[in-house]
């Protein structure tokens, strides 16, 4: 299981242990605690039993690729070619 290593309310590392480690975990100095958490990243804030990302990633809207119809309708020359091919010009 993954444990967030927290010091002063900040996740300083994420380590996998077979069982709940001691406090402080082996290899860490006093002031570190290990909290079982699968989705915390280093740098997360731990407060009130919750982990939060202080710098949540900004969602970027991905541009939607235009369809073939949209591309033809947007180009008068291509639209004329299409009408001529269909016999409706």
């Amino acid at each position, binding site marked *: 299981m*993954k*444990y967030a*290593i927290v010091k002063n309310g900040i996740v*300083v*590392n*994420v*380590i*996998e*242990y*077979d069982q709940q*480690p001691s406090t402080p*975990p*082996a*290899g*860490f*100095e006093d002031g570190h605690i290990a909290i079982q958490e*699968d*989705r*915390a*990243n*280093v740098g997360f804030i731990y407060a009130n039993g919750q982990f939060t990302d202080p710098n949540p*990633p900004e*969602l*970027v*809207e*991905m*541009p*939607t*690729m235009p369809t073939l119809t949209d591309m033809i309708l947007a180009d008068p020359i291509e639209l004329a070619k299409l009408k001529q091919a269909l016999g409706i010009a």
Partner: protein
Amino acid sequence: MEVATVSYNGSGTFQINTSGQPVVAGTVISSTAFNALTADLATGLSTAITKDGQTATTARIPFAAGISSTLVTDSSSTGTGSIITAGGAGIAKALYVGTTANVAGAVTLQSTLNVTGVATFSATPICSSLTASSAVATDASKNLVSVTNTGTGNNVLATSPTLVTPILGTPQSGTLTNATGLPLSTGVTGTLPVANGGTGLTSIPHTVQVFTSSSGTYTTPANCKAISVRMVGGGGGGAGTGTSATAGTAGGSTTFGTAFLTCTGGAGGFVTGVNQAGGTATGGDINIAGATAPGAVGGVTNFTGGVGGSTPFGGAGAGGCANATGSTAATNSGAGGGGGGGGTSTLTGGGGAAGAYLEKLISSPSATYSYAVGAAGTNGTGGTSNGGGGGSGLIIVTEYYV
């Protein structure tokens, strides 16, 4: 002794024939008596030894007072000297030679030869009691005896001998101050201690400790002279796709020592088109940043999810195909997990970035080091497909004792 003639009494006394003897004045000389007398005299004189050597003796002549010769001619052959004998000389007692004794023939000594002067052998003496050998010695009774030899050439004396390719066996002792050319690969036995510039070891050992998870304290083994540390941070998890997709989490940092060696984990794959950076390494002789993972791709139907970032250990997770879960990175590779595959009109999941990698050779290492192995990033989830988990970190410590 030959029996004497009539006139000799057998003891060497000549006795006048008494027939018609003695005569007195007026005795008529009888021819018979006279002739007998003269015959006796002739016989007696003929039997006597003549001093000029006219006759040869017919019997062994006893010389009760010895023989003295005034002949001064040296005895230098069988024809010169005071005594010449064709049959040899038998000496019942002692033989004394005043000057030089020359013996032309062989001499057979049947008793002890006591030499008080110097014995000079112009020819090589042969001691039949000895066996063929190139050296002789004396035994406890001071007799000459043959000794067994080894090798060829000259006999060796104690001081400053020159030996050619000798095989010395196992000398009782020796001082090799001036010896050169000793081949170290074959000429020595035992182990050269550290105090003499050696290692005190019979081989060049090294041991390896591998840490695949958790944290703790590494203790440098006794007599360890150096350690080589290779380590990688945890890889980020791949992002999911579809409804309520979540990003993967970052891998944990792998550390060795306090603020000494650090490989941060790779970032988790994201749900939009943002590439995610790999971890960074500090403190190593070689510091390799984790590979960046591609962000999500949108606008293309059923596009494959982003592949995870790889490390020197490989193991990156492949992006999931359409609607499929991304692959989990290899355990302890530090690589990123693959992003989930996109579905219809959905973004693909971004791959997880790789943890950083470093190598460090530490001479004269400290007694202990704290360590922590970064956990793998958790995969993101989503309504269409999930990402793959990252690869956990790793520490490999190779310990050298020379």
